[in-house]
């Protein structure tokens, strides 16, 4: 690690190397400790995932390092027992609607926040920021109460509306700095040629926004697939998404074979990972978190 100087930082390299020599064993020990802990963590997570994978293919596995044999039987059983076809369809409906709605509502709002000055802007910003600061369990319960009161509890609409609460602010906070980066002169030019906001939006802004919208949409998609609490509080028996169905399966272990549950977990993981890998083509993982959190500070 220490001998490989990165190409771009050749100026820093001699100092680093000299420093290394001076520090001696203490620093090396510290480095080893940090890397060792990180590797220990990652190995354990990897093995944990491997356990689920292995178990989902295992015929019988009890108290031995490896199972006795391998089979695809559990996937078929999970598909049947947990009615995964229905669950997956509900998941697609919920996630699709949440992504489309949060973009349709969020992008115009982000544009207004980035470009327009209007009374109550600070207050609007606060309303958009709060749902990301308050965890889903806290606001999910009053929200579910209201949804059940107006008769939307347990319905698909209710689940979609509930999931919009964290997704919409997320899109707004990702898109606001993105829109701010776009040259405002483009807008002035479009207006000179007589474009109103809608025309400017459709013909100038939207094409420039597509990469940002894609990134935000993919991140909302991944977050919504994994959003457990809100869906759990608002879903009825026919409106469970994959993550909620998985929870019920693990919760009532003993009723179903654990291998079958793990097969379902594998399906869940495969779906999330696929979308995460696609999302990573558009967003760097460190930006993924910091962009959103730093946005309110004007970074």
């Amino acid at each position, binding site marked *: 690690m220490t001998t*490989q100087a990165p190409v771009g930082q050749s100026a820093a390299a001699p100092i680093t190397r000299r420093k290394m020599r001076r520090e001696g064993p203490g620093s090396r020990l510290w480095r080893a400790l940090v890397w060792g802990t990180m590797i220990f963590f990652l190995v354990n997570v990897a*093995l944990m995932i491997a356990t*689920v994978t292995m178990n989902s293919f295992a015929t019988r596995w009890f108290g031995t390092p490896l199972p006795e044999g391998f089979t695809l039987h559990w996937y078929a059983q999970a598909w049947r027992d947990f009615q995964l076809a229905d669950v997956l369809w509900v998941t697609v409906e919920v996630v699709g609607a949440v992504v489309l709605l949060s973009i349709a509502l969020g992008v*115009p709002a982000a544009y207004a926040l980035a470009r327009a000055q209007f009374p109550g802007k600070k207050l609007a910003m606060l309303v958009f920021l709060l749902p990301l600061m308050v965890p889903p*369990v806290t606001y999910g319960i*009053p929200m579910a109460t209201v949804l059940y009161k107006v008769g939307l509890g347990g319905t698909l609409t209710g689940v979609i509306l509930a999931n919009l609460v964290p997704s919409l602010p997320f899109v707004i906070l990702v898109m606001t700095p993105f829109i701010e980066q776009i040259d405002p002169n483009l807008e002035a030019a479009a207006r000179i040629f007589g474009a109103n906001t809608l025309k400017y939006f459709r013909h100038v802004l939207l094409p420039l926004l597509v990469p940002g919208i894609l990134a935000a949409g993919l991140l909302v998609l991944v977050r919504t697939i994994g959003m457990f609490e809100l869906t759990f509080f608002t879903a009825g028996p026919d409106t469970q998404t994959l993550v909620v169905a998985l929870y019920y399966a*693990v919760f009532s272990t003993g009723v179903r074979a654990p291998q079958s549950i793990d097969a379902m977990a594998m399906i869940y993981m495969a779906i999330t990972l696929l979308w*995460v890998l696609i999302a990573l083509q558009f967003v760097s993982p460190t930006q993924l978190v910091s962009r959103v959190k730093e946005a309110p500070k004007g970074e």
Partner: protein
Amino acid sequence: MSAAASVSMTPAARADGRGWLVAPALVCLIAMFVYPFAYGLFLSFQPMEGGGVFANYLKFFTEPTLWPTVLITLKLAVPATLINVGASIPAAFALRKSTRASKFVTMLLVVPVTLGTVLIADGMLTYYGPNGWFPQALHALGLYHDEVRLTHNFWGVLISLVISGFPFAFLLILSYVTGIDPTLARAASTLGAGPWQQFRLIYLPLLVPGLTMAACLSFVQAFSVFPSAVLLGVPAGATRVVSIAAYEAAFESYDYSLASCVAIVMGFVQLVIVAGMLGVRRAFYSGPTTGGKG
């Protein structure tokens, strides 16, 4: 579609018509977030079983099944936050230079973020369970001879909070660390500052706002722990966290009034702790930075 609807409203506003574009999203969040919260607050003062306005709150703070849940949650959330943020700092420094190895590790750390707490709980039940690979490895290596109990207790929930929370805290802190100009530390190093001095006198003061943010978010995330406390813990005992109490009140005894009260208390405790952290930050921050900025 919504854009068209709000644009047609523009003539109404003289100042800047484009501001109306914010309306659809704002209406949606007011209906789904602000109103429910206000309604919940209102509802919590209308106890289902009658009694005074504060009957729910009295019940919460007197019944032994309710108020200790706050302490139990804090006992989980505080260590989890300290571990996640504490371990993230050295890890972020080790990986801050963008080499191939660090990019790879960063990538690997994104994976646990996406797994979700339910899947982590499911995996942990098998992996750390009495017959899982982890206990088997401990026994095989002769590190521990008794029965290894890491699931269905406090430790199981804490481990799951670290697995799901550490990558999140790490990515957040990494992006703060990489945002600091390394020439500052290099300048200090030419003046003879060792790595510890560089960290303490240069990086740490600049990192404090980021660290506070990361700590607040990690804490809030850990404080609302729910699925893993049920699946990996003892939901009736050692890991009966606040969210379990709120869930049971709302969806098992259908006492939405009490459930709202629990949710409000939960939000209040979070708010107090977050405000406390921000306050500590201010006290801590004032000294070193003014000196550094001049």
